[in-house]
């Protein structure tokens, strides 16, 4: 009876929600941004350390939110390490489309390693919960703002 819910709240997501990875301040961050979802009060800060070639050496976050937004942020920080700025942007765009459209081939669109795609696909259950898409994408919007040099982003 709760099939959609089981699809959304997969064990991996619940685990990232409970024990978020890279949940810390990054002292050597070259850019950061605050993300805010006024609807539910979720707030995140995303920290990125980019090297001279635009490669993300470290990604971390802090803040509080629901299981979906925390898990998404946690998984994002793992995925981003070692990716270039351009790859990160492409992943964001592909992930966003995956969350909002019915049958979207994220593997083809992301042009990225299978591991990253697989992780992002774990959040595809959010498609059945339109009001929760903002939760899943908050961290990515915040990352996008950070690399573009914006301080704040709101998913309202």
């Amino acid at each position: 009876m709760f099939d959609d819910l089981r699809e959304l709240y997969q064990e991996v997501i619940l685990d990232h929600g409970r024990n978020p990875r890279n949940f810390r301040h990054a002292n050597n961050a070259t850019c950061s941004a605050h993300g805010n979802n006024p609807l539910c009060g979720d707030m995140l800060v995303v920290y990125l350390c980019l090297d001279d070639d635009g490669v993300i050496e470290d990604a971390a976050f802090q803040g509080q939110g629901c299981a979906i937004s925390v898990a998404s942020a946690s998984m994002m920080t793992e995925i981003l390490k070692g990716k270039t700025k351009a790859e990160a942007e492409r992943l964001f765009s592909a992930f966003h489309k995956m969350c909002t459209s019915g049958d979207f081939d994220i593997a083809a669109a992301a042009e990225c390693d299978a591991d990253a795609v697989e992780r992002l696909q774990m959040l595809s259950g959010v498609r059945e919960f339109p009001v929760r898409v903002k939760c899943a994408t908050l961290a990515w919007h915040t990352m996008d703002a950070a690399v573009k040099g914006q301080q704040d982003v709101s998913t309202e």
Partner: protein
Amino acid sequence: MNKDTNVVEIRHGVNSTTTFDVERIRADFPILDQSVYGKPLVYFDNGASAQKPRQVIDAMNDIMETNYSNVHRGVHALSQRSTEAYEAVRGKVARFFNAASENEIVFCRGGTEAINVVAYAYGRKFLSAGDEIVISHMEHHSNIVPWQMLRDEIGIVLRVAPIDDDGNFLLDDYEKLLSDKTKLVAMTHVSNALGTIVPIAEVIRLAHDHGARALVDGCQAVQHGAVDMQALDVDFYVFSSHKLYGPTGIGVLYGKEELLNSMPPFMGGGDMITSVSFEKTEFQQAPLRFEAGTPSIVEAIGMGAALDYLDAIGVDNISAHEEGILHYATERLSQVEGLKIIGQASDKAAIISFIMDGVHAHDIGTIIDRAGVAVRVGHHCAQPVMERFGIAATARASFGLYNTPTEVDTLVEALGAVREFFG
């Protein structure tokens, strides 16, 4: 409470007993008879907006099918009938809340607009730099932001009356904030986030003792119990129709007549004037002074029908029924493992805010939605009080006259499913 039949026996004094038949009341609300995700709808989001009985829906349809026209202008039959129906609601509101005169009933878009009218029209005329306004720690944003805007514009000072860890309003601490600088107390009657009933009569009396005016935000109060404007001796009282089983787009600013007439208009336009030339305009007296433009005619008539409906059931009967639900739900929810009720004031309206260990309110809301249960999750437009409790969000079940103990059981079961997911 007899849980099997959802019938609550209500005792008035010693001798008389009325039966409140919740099933008959439910039959008046067409929207309740539906399933969501294959489960019977359990609507516990009444604090955000209540559902409408057939009587309200019919009254609104009826006016549009028979007597609708613009009000206060035409000499033709429909306009006269519309005006009569519209103005009759003013009388109903005045009687329902025991105002001294229907001239004290200003129609506006809702509670938020009503507070803004006072901030703008009363605040800008009668307050100046250094004057103090006292609010409470558990105000809705609509009773914080207008005063902050006024503060930033004219330099008044906002003081905040505290609450304790159970959400009780601290009357003594409030009294200590009052001084000859206090010009206005703007206070919620019932906290939308915690359910706390503020001892508002005392709050008003103390404000008056210090020469201050009192505005009360009754948006979460009027649907739960009887409110008497003259007994309270309140200066301004505001509420929205849509939380009172009426339509959206209409609400009431009650104000003492001489006070309203001492205030400049909030908006200029048609209907609020007695004469206009390019040199000079004469304004109407209250209430029309504050009702520029074509008002929400159909909505006002819907609000009137909602008041008639509540009158027929009896507001005291509704209070007693909801008290039963609140009591039962508090008991049941307290037994849910890892659940904590936020706001356990000794005097509460039928609102329960809660959090669960290790589960964000948003996830609670999503999961129980699939079990058919509608609650509000988030900060409830009351971020300062959330901060007071060190939390970002709660889930809130807010009960209405059509809710039943069986529905509370459904909520508790659904919370069991939340535990299954989150362990």
